[in-house]
């Protein structure tokens, strides 16, 4: 006897909603993504080469940083006092050559300390001139210094 074959239902996965799902995922990530913005300070440093003949402390205000103290024009100041003095100098109202500040740090000054000072100078509108120690100076002997110009 011949039995009638049952007709099998056609196997079909409905993928129509996959599109909606994918778009929802895209929209979710677009809305929830936050782009990391770094925190920082733009330094205004005169670009160019070092000039060993230039006397860096001739006319410009000078900040000397050592491991335990900060000197502003040879007077010891706290960091908050330095910030107040810098903002009192009203750099934005001055001409460019009158905005230069020499920052000199001892070789053992950690960057964290230096960073605080240079960002304060930068925020006040000062132009940073970096002083580089010569090898002889690091050894404790007298020696010149170079200012980036």
């Amino acid at each position, binding site marked *: 006897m011949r039995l009638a074959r049952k007709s099998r239902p056609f196997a079909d996965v409905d993928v129509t909603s996959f599109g909606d799902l*994918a778009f929802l995922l895209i929209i979710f990530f677009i809305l929830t993504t936050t782009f990391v913005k770094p925190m920082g*300070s733009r330094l205004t440093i005169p670009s160019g080469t070092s000039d060993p003949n230039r006397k860096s402390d001739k006319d410009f205000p000078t900040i000397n940083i050592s491991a335990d103290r900060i000197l502003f024009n040879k007077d010891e100041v706290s960091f908050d006092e330095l910030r107040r003095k810098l903002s009192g100098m009203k750099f934005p109202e001055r001409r460019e050559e009158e905005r230069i500040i020499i920052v000199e740090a001892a*070789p053992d000054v*950690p960057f964290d300390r230096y960073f605080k000072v240079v960002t304060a100078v930068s925020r006040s509108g000062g132009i940073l001139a970096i002083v580089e120690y010569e090898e002889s100076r690091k050894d404790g002997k007298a020696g010149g210094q170079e200012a*980036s110009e």
Partner: protein
Amino acid sequence: MRLPRREKKRPYVPVASFGDLAFLLIIFFMVASTFMREKHVKAREASSPDIEKAELKPISVILDSEGQLWLQGQKCPPDALEAAVSALLEGAREKTVMLKIDKDQPQEKYGKVLLALSGAGADILLVGVREGQSARPATPN
């Protein structure tokens, strides 16, 4: 005379290919995105009350916690930094270099980096954290 009424077709928009389209978009953005180059470099950020939010810049220099210098995520000898940055900046409209220095590095190390970047004609964006915020162990980007 009665005319036979035409059977109206239901409007149908084929949306099966939308899924392909969406996945192609996802793949495109995955391929086109650039991820942090310096994730592997360990440099603790210095802190200051005088910093603000800044834009990401394409050129980055890092002086890590071991005193090793990195340019664009690749190790760079200190003596070669100025020339390498000059070459990167040549013809570039954006002259800003993002500089991150480990907070404990001494001046004899970071001073040379600052002078090299200055010599290369770069505008320096010093990266750090605002005082009071906890410093992250890895790079910012």
